[in-house]
């Protein structure tokens, strides 16, 4: 890294890339999430988002948001809108993929609000 300008350029480029994504799907994959079964959940979502869909949707792993008893957690950001899916399984991930990620319909029964 040679200069602040170089760092700024990486920042701008990354933010621009993140900005083109309509849905950012984050799977909590810290030790807690993995232990609760996040890996198969991640696989369903990552394998499901391919081809054209991958141009507007990104599936990433992330750290722990701190809600231990709700793991595995999947969050979907669409601009300011945040949806928190909890206690996920591969089957639930499949439904979220079809309904929410592909068709924009929140699967309310899997969200934190319905599982509180």
């Amino acid at each position, binding site marked *: 890294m040679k200069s*602040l300008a170089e760092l700024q350029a990486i920042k701008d480029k990354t933010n621009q890339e993140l900005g083109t994504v309509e849905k950012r799907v984050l799977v909590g994959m810290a*030790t807690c999430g*993995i232990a609760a079964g996040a890996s198969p959940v991640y696989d369903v979502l990552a394998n499901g988002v391919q081809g054209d869909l991958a141009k507007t949707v990104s599936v990433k792993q992330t750290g*722990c948001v701190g*809600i231990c008893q709700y793991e595995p957690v999947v969050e979907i950001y669409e601009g300011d809108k945040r949806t928190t899916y909890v206690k996920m399984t591969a089957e639930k991930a499949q439904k979220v993929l079809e309904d929410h990620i592909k068709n924009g319909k929140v699967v309310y029964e899997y969200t*934190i609000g319905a599982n509180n």
Partner: protein
Amino acid sequence: MTCSNDKMVAGASLNETEFFKKQTRVALRNCGVIDPCNINEYIARDGYAALGKVLTEMSSEDVIQTLLDSGLRGRGGAGFPTGLKWKFAAANADDQKYVCCNADEGDPGAFMDRSVLEGDPHVVLEAMAIAGYAIGATQGYIYVRAEYPVAVERLQLAIKQAREYGLLGKNIFESGFDFDIDLRLGAGAFVCGEETALMTSIEGKRGEPHPRPPFPAKSGLFKKPTILNNVETWANIPQIILNGADWFAGMGTEKSKGTKVFALGGKIKNTGLVEIPMGTPLREVVEEIGGGIPGGKKFKAAQTGGPSGGCIPAQHFDVAIDYDNLIAIGSMMGSGGLIVMDEDNCMVDIAKFFLEFTVDESCGKCTPCRVGTRRLLEMLDKITKGQGTMQDLEEMKELCLYIKANSLCGLGQTAPNPVLSTLNYFYDEYVAHVKDKRCPAGVCKDLLSFTIDKDKCIGCGLCARNCPVNCISQTDYVAPGHKLASYVIDSSKCIKCGACMANCKVGAISKK
């Protein structure tokens, strides 16, 4: 409820929960938000901008002054002012100095540091490089326990990425400053979290502590001036550089600035990791963020500071959590474990739990800790078996004070704290074990007896069928209004497992 495309669905987001709303995320700001394996995502959230600012605009004195002004204190337990530690190390001229990160996280049940390492590894690297510049060090070490394989893997990847970008290595930001970081894996010994033992372990020797002074700022790793900070301490530093000392000092209480991460556990609805401003009342953490105690049970105490800490009883439920307030009531901040206990927890048993831990983890180098904690545990064991005497209680206290005063390192010096604080606040409970041979919370097995109320018993026999030692048999007494004869427990054979009570459909079995 309608689910439209662009409208927020009520309740569907973590943002709307009490758990989340009351938190202020500084150390955890990127955890669960960025991809920890992608350095660009860290940079997109102002990552490495603080290092850039420090290397291009600030002198090392400026950096240290900013930390002093921010009021940041160490998050690893003792709460020593971070800026002061750096100032001491900067003042000691030497050809080689070191910067270390304590990622040993040995407190049972604590996972604050693991979460930062796994969710935001670059923040630690960036902060350590800032420290290297401030004190004049070119090499850093992260001491992380091998039981954290995911953290280790992500740290390794982060170091590799930072080197590729030239954010670690030679001539960073063309400032002439060189800095690199290596990992050292620990085998998961509690004592290796103590600073002198940690450095001895990095040197490749057996992880045992040695007396201070000299303090590490003067003679630390390889006898060179060294600073050691905790993971969470590091995680605050880039934000302090970017947002200024005043911003940070604007959060918290007079002497404890900023936020603190707690691992919330025990008898609480929302277990998890929470980051709250210093000064938040304990009651708010338990009742609002934590969602209260399940089953409508009553709050009895909160344990903070892990094996070095103490219990905060109900009369101090409103205490504003900061370093000094917790010490004043006989506990301590510690690294952030917060275990909530209700009426079903026996405080003698809790003290015993922590003593078992310290007895196991004592390195054995000094006698007060090696032998003293073992004697203390034996006394506690006697009490929980109903064989203790009032004299034991007196002697126990004396032994506690002796161990504290004479142990070599912080492990022994703090090991008696769980005993002292429970003796102080829950003396009645100790006395009940000693004098009445009774455990008021119904936990200590040797003092329990299970009995069947012969008039409530319907004679179904479920208890007898579930008893693993076959100590329940049928009598010939048939209670008025019942068809079958009642059962009775032979307490001489009973192992107090509680299976009978758990299986009784009519609540005829009680323990006392």
